[in-house]
């Protein structure tokens, strides 16, 4: 393996991994392991996994069609649309939370209507957590899936059309199965980003144990009073997500067979 690649690769891995190792070493495990057994931690972890998974599901339902429009349609202004979809990445998450209030809050454009007509309020509920995480994480999914769609061989879609499949059937029965690995990769990015989401969630959904307090919120609060507990909580979050990613890869990505792995 060429050194000019191996050396920066090793440096890069060290750069990403050393801080995690630092955390692992620094964490006062013996003191803190009992704390992990506290019901609040389990609750926050469950809520995190649940809401990140729901946010990923919503992102798939809304984001894959956006990616399809970006990759396959001939609408004008697609490059502007693509840039606009990328831009929420840049928005500081707290401002993202404020922006969500402006639309879905009690006084928001849509939220006011929901509140007055159906007595529905979205902020401060688990729904709000899912919405905040979706807002922040969906762009990652869209951009990954668009790439996968562009790379996929569109001639299979032609073949499906000549076999009587309209565009929707073609999408469902041909395109989607073909780009499944790309969609999976995008979903992983999206899920990871949602799992780590903090700013938009605390702003839009607030922080209430059991309904809106996800792990990153718990970590942040712990940082205020007990920084070492915060580190242990983060490591728990990391461990769970690492385990999930490895499990998924074997179970799900493995099947479609990446070319080299």
């Amino acid at each position, binding site marked *: 393996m060429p050194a000019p690649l191996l050396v920066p690769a090793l440096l890069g891995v060290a750069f990403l991994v050393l801080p995690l190792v630092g955390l692992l070493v620094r964490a006062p495990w013996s003191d803190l392991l009992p704390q992990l057994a506290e019901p609040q931690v389990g609750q926050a972890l469950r809520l995190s996994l649940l809401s990140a998974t729901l946010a990923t599901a919503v992102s798939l339902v809304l984001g894959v069609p956006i990616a399809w429009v970006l990759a396959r349609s001939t609408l004008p202004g697609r490059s502007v649309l693509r840039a606009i979809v990328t831009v929420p990445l840049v928005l500081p998450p707290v401002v993202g939370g404020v922006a969500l209030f402006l639309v879905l809050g009690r006084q928001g454009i849509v939220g006011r209507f929901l509140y007055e007509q159906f007595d529905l309020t979205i902020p401060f509920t688990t729904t709000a957590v899912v919405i905040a995480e979706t807002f922040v994480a969906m762009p990652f999914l869209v951009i990954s899936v668009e790439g996968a769609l562009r790379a996929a061989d569109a001639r299979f879609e032609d073949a499906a059309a000549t076999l009587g499949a309209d565009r929707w059937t073609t999408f469902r029965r041909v395109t989607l199965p073909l780009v499944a690995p790309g969609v999976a990769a995008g979903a992983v990015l999206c899920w990871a980003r949602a799992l780590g989401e903090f700013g938009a969630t605390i702003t839009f959904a*607030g*922080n209430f144990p059991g309904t*809106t307090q996800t792990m990153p*919120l718990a970590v*942040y609060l*712990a940082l*205020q*009073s007990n920084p070492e507990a915060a580190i242990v909580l983060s490591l728990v979050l990391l461990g769970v997500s690492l385990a999930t990613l490895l499990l998924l890869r074997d179970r799900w990505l493995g099947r479609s067979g990446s070319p080299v792995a």
Partner: protein
Amino acid sequence: GGSTTDAASPADGTAAGGGLTGTLTVFAAASLTDVFTDLGDRLMADNPGLTVTFNFAGSSALATQVTQGAPADVFASANQTQMTVVTDAGLADGDPTVFAENVLAIAVPEGNPADVTGIADFGDADLTLAVCAPDVPCGAAAEQVFEAAGVTAQPDTLEEDVRAALTKVELGEVDAALVYASDVQSAAGRVEGIAFPEAEDAVNDYPIAQLSDAPNPEAARAFLDLVGSDAGQQALTDAGFRSPSN
């Protein structure tokens, strides 16, 4: 607290002589942004050779940075807990002094649409209410207040800092939040404040300290003096803080 221990400087903090030079680095809680920026400008006006830079962030982040060897001269915390982190690490030069106090106040959106009148309304489950989380100082204060008032609070969210609670009031998304009087003052025109007597049971102190590794100890002392001077206290009062009661 209230006065500097080693009374080395003249009163009124005008740092006579204007001979300070170099850079003064102040780590200060984000809630002090406007007041301290103003005081820094004054110090620079009096000492043309001096540059004052601020690092405004959450007190806990600042405490972490100081313990990690940040090149700071002064640390002003929004609570004693984070100052203790610094003093326990032996990084403060002398004892910290309390330069301001803050008491809780109820913030309601303009026009007070839910007709909140006092602390008792925080026991109303039908209202949408924001309170700080117990892990942060304003949350600890809120718990004391509720206990004193005999209220079982029914909050919808336990905010991780006061500012987040205040933002929700400003946007009209909660009916009331328990925040600091200084926050109500800073958001004047966008929120209304309601004072309540039980607030006196949980007064929050703002301590300030010069750091032992301060690169510019003279300027640090001058800044501490300015904060403690009448002019400094007036600026703090204008911003909704109280002078230390003792």
